[in-house]
């Protein structure tokens, strides 16, 4: 019991004194996962909308692939991103393995299918005739797509939540492609794994508390927006 109590006390001490190392790790986590989420939103909303509206042979297969992709195991992503970025891998020339950029890449790969899948579902959930109604209002194709995405903005917030929530707490890929280098590519999850392994439970608990707070805060804000605009 002492272990947990001391750990928690130490954790709050580290948080409230804004411990330099803990602060650095937290900011890097936010930066990396935030960037990866933005990238995944850009790709995922475009692809999801396109697949939702287009009719082409093999569409069913594409939809199945996207849905499968929503559950990609992070370690598998980590493995393949590592292989691609390896010195003599296809993207080896970029020389970004074991950098925060590599983590962003891996996390974007994890989050993109999630955002794509949720976008696809949200757009398909709009009334079937809405597309025709917008066209009948005189819209160009581009205006039509824009208005549809705008109309699906609330469910799309779920995509943001799911995407960010999925990668801020992800550890497998981050440790594989980032290398958990102190002060450079160490993020909340990889640091927690390491500190726990070393028996530094106090630091590990501090990091976990921050991680949970972050996840909670982001979701609370998004939920707030979503619920406020919800009809009746």
């Amino acid at each position, binding site marked *: 019991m002492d272990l947990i109590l001391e750990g928690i006390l130490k954790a709050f001490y580290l948080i409230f004194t804004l411990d330099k190392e803990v602060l650095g790790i937290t900011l890097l986590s936010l930066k990396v996962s935030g960037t990866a989420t933005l990238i995944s939103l850009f790709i995922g909303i475009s692809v999801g909308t396109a697949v939702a509206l287009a009719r082409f042979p093999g569409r069913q297969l594409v939809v199945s692939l996207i849905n499968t992709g929503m559950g990609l195991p992070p370690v598998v992503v980590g493995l393949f991103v590592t292989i691609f970025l390896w010195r003599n891998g296809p993207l080896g020339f970029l020389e970004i393995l074991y950098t925060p950029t590599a983590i962003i890449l891996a996390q974007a790969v994890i989050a993109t299918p999630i955002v794509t899948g949720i976008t696809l579902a949200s757009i398909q959930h709009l*009334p079937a*005739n*809405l597309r*025709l*109604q917008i*066209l*009948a*209002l*005189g*819209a*160009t194709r581009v*205006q039509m797509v824009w*208005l549809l995405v*705008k*109309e699906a*903005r*609330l469910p799309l917030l779920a995509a943001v939540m799911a995407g960010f929530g999925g990668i801020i707490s992800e550890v497998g890929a981050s440790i594989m492609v980032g290398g958990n280098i102190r002060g450079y590519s160490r993020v909340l999850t990889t640091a927690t794994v390491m500190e726990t392994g070393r028996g530094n439970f106090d630091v590990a608990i501090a990091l976990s508390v921050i991680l949970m707070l972050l996840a909670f805060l982001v979701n609370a804000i998004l939920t707030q927006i979503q619920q406020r*605009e919800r*009809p*009746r």
Partner: protein
Amino acid sequence: MTPETMPEVLLKAENLLVRRGGVTVLDIPALDVLSGQVLALIGPNGAGKSTLLLTLAGLLKPARGSLLFRGEKIGNGGFDYRRRIAMVFQEPLLFDATVFDNVAAGLKIRGIGRAEIGRTVPEYLERFGVGHLAKRSARKLSGGEAQRTSLARAFVTKPEIVFLDEPFSSLDPPTRDALIGDLEQILRETHTTAVASTHDQMEALRLADRLAVMNGGKIAQIGPVAEVMNRPADKFVASFVGVETVLPGRVLSVSDGVFVAAVEGGEIQAVGHVRTGEGVLCCIRPEHVTLSTNAPPLGTSARNVFSGIIRTITPLGLFHRVRVDCGFDLVAYVTRQSLEELLLQEGKSVTASFKATAVHVIRRGALPPG
């Protein structure tokens, strides 16, 4: 109708064919939508009303056929055409925005400036009775308010033709009645050409100048309302709409709730709240019409008594459908026994009568042509 008064053809469809999953769902060799008129498409579910509307609106590409708007073929994708039309669906399909922003949507899409939107939108909000809801979220509207917003959104762009796909069928009767009245007024005031689908005969009678009865993806009959109602071309049309005699008329005088309406070839007495000079449709069900071979009977409560000549007798199973020419056509149902007792046959003179209370009156702002 004389050729000089014939309105011009605004939209012309030729050889339209729409297939879905290898099945032909629409087959229209020719269809004219006349300028300034309301054409009602009436028919059972699955008759192809919605498909025809979407095709006419340029929103559904037919497998074959062409559309001519003001004599010009509608071009690739129909973008220019879509900016000249408007469509209202059964569901209001409003955006998740305020009522004002919803009504402004079509104008914004056309890149019209804020100042003009600020001028035009309130006018149409008022016209459709949703001015007080301008700032309300479209998600917090009742069914009637939402459909009013949808109609305002369609009319604010001043479309040259409006397509209405069963716009009132999800509303409760009082709401529907009020909304049809408002729409009727706006259509007549602005002389907007419209094509509206409905499966409600009364709705069609109130709004339409011309009626097209659809069945199985085809137009079974098209013509002026009274013509289609009174002279159904085939059994299907007769079973779907031809249950009444419909006489377009104008109110001559009103006294004590009973009014006299001039119809083509005669005058009819009926009961209803109407004003002198107003256009009305007088609908008389065939089972309410009594035939006799005597001179006009004395001491009857029937206020409408006409002498006429039997034009056609059509057996309809248990009874016969008798069309009597009394200056206008009047249809009566007669049992086989009566037919035999009265020795009714085509060409014979008879007296037809019905009570003023048997006339179902539909008020019309203007006298429909035809």
